[in-house]
């Protein structure tokens, strides 16, 4: 017990704390899944289909089985029901058509890269060598590849299903009672207003996390332990148990250091299931680590939609209605979130605007391509792109500044809380303020003046300025809302706080970080709330034995849902400590004040710190009769609402009208993400998000050839931006604290990606609009920009990129791993 009060420590929340996790990451003391080696561990290599759609006629494993140091070669038929299944957790409609998804199919493959056999050997190199010896006879089937064509059901991705159409999901504001009749609004505008009709392509993207996926399964011991490079250890454990019949309590899943995810590791993968089944079959630990080509070809892709959009407005630019018709490519299977991704965008097309009528229609379609699922933003970047491109088109139609048109339609600061036409209640925001700040940072007026000069002088290099004012719903998600949407799980998060005997604090969170900095940010929250030093807090996560309850990390939820669970657990610890403090101080609990980590007796200098109380609870020599000798507490928090960060992003690009080359000149953004826990981490999230969104606008595209082979299957072909392609960014924040959580925070993980894509494309189109161009298809490559200038609508399709890499005359096929020397 101490009578000396420490000087009040600096508040942790809001501090630019350097990250706790960095020390080991910058010195190479890392624990990536692929680093693990267990005694007797065997290595797996996958035999994958080179065809997009084919019957498996026979699989001859004899030669491979006879190879030196090969332990086994296993097919789907060998595993039978033990292989479990890959689940879809969100049937978006009651009658969704969902093909069964075996990790290793037995009779038919539905996309190029699908696993048909697995080789088990003493080393990874020997497993790969032997994989080349597995002789699979295929009977090739016609493949459904093009999304629009697949929607006609002429060629079926899964002939047994009789259709490629998986589900049709609709929201209509008139039917929902949240707004008017959109068709009536459009009809009216056709006679006395403005109608903007556009079709935009959301190209297929690849999350391309830097750490390839890896899984190690150890079946020895009472629990089967699975280490996996996953964002979702808890969901993975559930899915394995639910589909293999192994009790959940017999499975332990650990996500050790995980090298990025961006939604791409929010999956229950065939490779995880196969490793699990093979380890059980052989009773030996096994490891599978994918090559980069395997990762790009078979880890789920993102986006891939056609967006048909109709917007109606009064002659003065006041929008009266928006109708959205989407085609969304699911790929060969309905992935874990699957068709839920476009549905997450359904509530966001109306964005920050006061549209009186809105309708959203989405048809999800099966094709014989890699399955698609969440990729940073998941549904919301698509929605933001569509509406922000349309607002620029409306401005062009009116001949007005694009910011003016937005201002006329957006929700004013004094109108919050605001119920939108999509039925969501936005809690807080100030679009004007963020826009003003972003314009100041960019030097908007000066750049507009320069643009005018360049246009008038007919400069070869034209300047374009792109605007994107965005909002997003994040913090997935209130469980009741998820239930209404037929999602298979809740959206709560769990936390516990353990007060150790030495006064150190262990914080357990069900969120599972993979680069976000939870260890640091969560330590800051606990340090402030509990009043203990930042250094004394240890954040534990990503292991179902340590953090038994959780719903993991995605959808900008960790802080706003997981952080709130933490706050509640800390408050319970303080509540539990109070009677113990009163007992030891021989005071009435009512006379105690808690501040700075210490219970003080009001009006005296007597007090005791929470860390001293932890020691006292551990010793348990003296405590009140009606309390248990522990201060530890758990909390589960289910959010009451989403939260709605917003921001204004402005981008200036220069377009060389002779070559089509786009150069980014300046990018400025002002995001309102509510209260900020750690500005350094927030800046990092914004920068990284921006580049992923900019990359969609300018560089990245997953391209298939006519046979359904992914031709952008290496980093030589899939154009991830480098340091030399990108620029430094000007970022700032306005602050409208969220009213839906006690910390007043809003999500930030996806904001940059959601906002930046339309800002860049708007800028590119703005640079050449005076040449009669009103759209350029993403990615806006120099070729497309040049073609658009030459008068080809949208710049045309990507043709050159679909050049086959492997000459059929050599017998080399796209699935051969070139790095191991190929199938010589």
């Amino acid at each position, binding site marked *: 017990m101490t009578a000396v009060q420490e000087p009040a420590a600096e508040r942790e929340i809001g501090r630019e704390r350097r990250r706790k996790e960095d020390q080991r990451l910058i010195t*190479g003391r890392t624990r990536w899944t692929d680093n693990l080696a267990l005694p007797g561990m065997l290595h797996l290599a996958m035999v994958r289909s080179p065809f997009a759609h084919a019957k498996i006629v026979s699989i001859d494993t004899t030669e491979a089985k006879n190879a030196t140091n090969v332990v086994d070669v296993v097919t789907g038929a060998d595993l039978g029901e033990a292989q479990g299944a890959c689940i879809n957790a969100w049937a978006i409609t009651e009658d969704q058509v969902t093909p069964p998804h075996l990790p290793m199919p037995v009779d038919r493959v539905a996309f190029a890269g699908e696993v048909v056999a697995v080789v088990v050997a003493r080393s990874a190199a020997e497993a790969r060598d032997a994989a080349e010896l597995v002789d699979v006879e295929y009977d090739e089937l016609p493949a459904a590849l093009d999304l629009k064509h697949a929607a006609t059901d002429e060629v079926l991705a899964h002939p047994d299903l009789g259709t490629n159409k998986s589900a049709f999901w609709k929201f209509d504001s008139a039917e929902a009672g949240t707004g008017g009749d959109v068709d009536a609004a459009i009809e009216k505008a056709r006679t006395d207003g403005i109608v903007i009709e556009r079709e935009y392509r959301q190209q297929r993207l690849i999350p391309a*996390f830097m750490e390839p996926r890896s899984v190690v399964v150890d079946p020895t011991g009472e629990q089967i332990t699975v280490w996996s490079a996953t964002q979702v250890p808890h969901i993975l454990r559930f899915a394995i148990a639910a589909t293999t019949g192994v009790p959940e309590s017999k499975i332990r899943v650990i996500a050790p250091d995980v090298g990025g995810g961006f939604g791409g590791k929010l999956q229950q993968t065939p490779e995880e299931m196969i490793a699990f089944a093979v380890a059980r079959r052989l009773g030996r630990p096994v490891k599978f680590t994918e090559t980069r080509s395997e990762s790009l070809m078979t880890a789920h892709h993102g986006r891939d939609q056609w967006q048909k959009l109709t917007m109606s407005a009064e002659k003065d630019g006041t929008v009266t209605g928006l109708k959205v018709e989407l085609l969304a490519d699911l790929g060969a299977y309905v992935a874990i979130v699957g068709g839920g991704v476009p549905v997450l965008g359904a509530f966001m097309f109306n964005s920050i605007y006061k549209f009186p009528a809105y309708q959203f229609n989405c048809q999800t379609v099966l094709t014989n391509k890699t399955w698609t699922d969440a990729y940073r933003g998941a549904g919301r970047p698509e929605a933001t792109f569509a509406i922000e491109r349309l607002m620029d088109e409306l401005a062009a139609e009116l001949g007005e500044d694009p910011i003016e048109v937005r201002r006329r339609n957006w929700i004013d600061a004094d109108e919050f809380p605001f119920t939108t036409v999509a039925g969501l209640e936005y809690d807080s925001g100030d679009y004007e303020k963020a826009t003003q700040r972003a314009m100041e940072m960019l030097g908007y007026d000066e750049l507009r003046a320069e643009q005018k000069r360049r246009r008038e002088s007919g400069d070869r290099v034209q300047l374009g300025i792109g605007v994107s004012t965005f909002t997003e719903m994040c913090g997935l998600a209130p469980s009741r809302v998820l239930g209404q949407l037929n999602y298979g799980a809740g959206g709560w998060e769990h936390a516990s706080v353990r007060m150790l005997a030495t006064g150190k604090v262990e914080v357990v969170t069900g969120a599972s970080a993979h*680069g976000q900095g939870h260890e640091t940010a969560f330590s800051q929250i606990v340090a402030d709330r509990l009043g203990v030093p930042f250094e004394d807090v240890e954040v534990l996560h990503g292991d179902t034995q340590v953090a038994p309850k959780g719903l993991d990390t995605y959808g900008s939820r960790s802080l706003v849902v997981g952080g709130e669970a933490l706050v509640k657990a800390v408050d319970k610890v303080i509540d539990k400590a109070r009677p113990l403090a009163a007992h030891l101080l021989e005071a009435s609990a009512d006379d105690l004040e808690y501040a700075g980590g210490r219970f003080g007796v009001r009006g005296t200098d007597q007090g005791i710190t929470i860390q001293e109380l932890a020691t006292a609870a551990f010793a348990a020599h003296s405590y009140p009769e009606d309390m248990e000798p522990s201060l530890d507490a758990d909390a589960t928090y289910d959010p009451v609402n989403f939260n709605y960060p917003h921001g204004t992003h402005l981008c200036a690009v220069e377009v060389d009208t002779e070559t089509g080359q786009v150069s980014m000149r300046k990018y400025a953004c002002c995001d309102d993400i509510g209260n900020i826990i750690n500005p350094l981490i927030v800046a990092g999230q914004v920068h990284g998000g921006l580049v992923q969104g900019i990359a969609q606008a300018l560089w990245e595209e997953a391209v298939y050839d006519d046979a359904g082979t992914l031709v952008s299957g*290496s980093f030589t072909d899939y154009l991830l931006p480098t340091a030399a392609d*990108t620029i430094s960014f000007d970022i700032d924040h306005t602050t409208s604290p969220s009213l839906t959580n006690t910390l007043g925070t809003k999500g930030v993980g996806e904001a940059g990606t959601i906002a930046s894509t339309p800002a860049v494309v708007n800028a590119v189109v703005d640079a050449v609009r005076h040449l009669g161009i009103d759209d350029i298809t993403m990615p806006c490559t120099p070729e497309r920009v040049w073609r658009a200038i030459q008068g080809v609508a949208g710049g045309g399709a990507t043709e050159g990129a679909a050049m086959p890499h492997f000459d059929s005359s050599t017998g080399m096929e796209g699935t051969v791993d070139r790095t191991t020397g190929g199938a010589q």
Partner: protein
Amino acid sequence: MTRISLTVDGARVADDVEPRMLLVQYLRERLGKTGTVIGCDTSNCGACTVHLDGESVKSCNVLAVQADGCEVTTIEGLAQDGELHPVQEAFRECHGLQCGFCTPGMVMQSVALLKENPQPSEEEIRLGLEGNLCRCTGYHNIVRAVQHAAGVSTGSTSEEQEQGVTA
């Protein structure tokens, strides 16, 4: 099998290796130097960057046998006597990493870049790191980290040169 002997992070090592074994596989699988990682197999991403006789190389693009008789420094050998290298310190200071997977390669490349050009412009930094991919940071803070390391003090630069001489 071929016998190789080399120095890795200051320690003398010798092994029989298959001729096809890559340096990065040798480091990870035989020496347990798992700080160096494999990101792409096609020498695009640079996550496996190490120093071979003081020059930065992508260790997925070097055979283990080519390192025979050489001196290899990995991310694990960069800190000296418990003191972080100024570039490591700068990456932490400037939040130049998130998931940390590209970081070993990014740090090793940045060290090599600064050795060649102790006072690089932003453009020179961006071009110098072109062979290293990062998916998290958008490069903004990586560039800041290299600028920060360049400006730390001339002392660290001369120390760097001394290390180069002994190598």
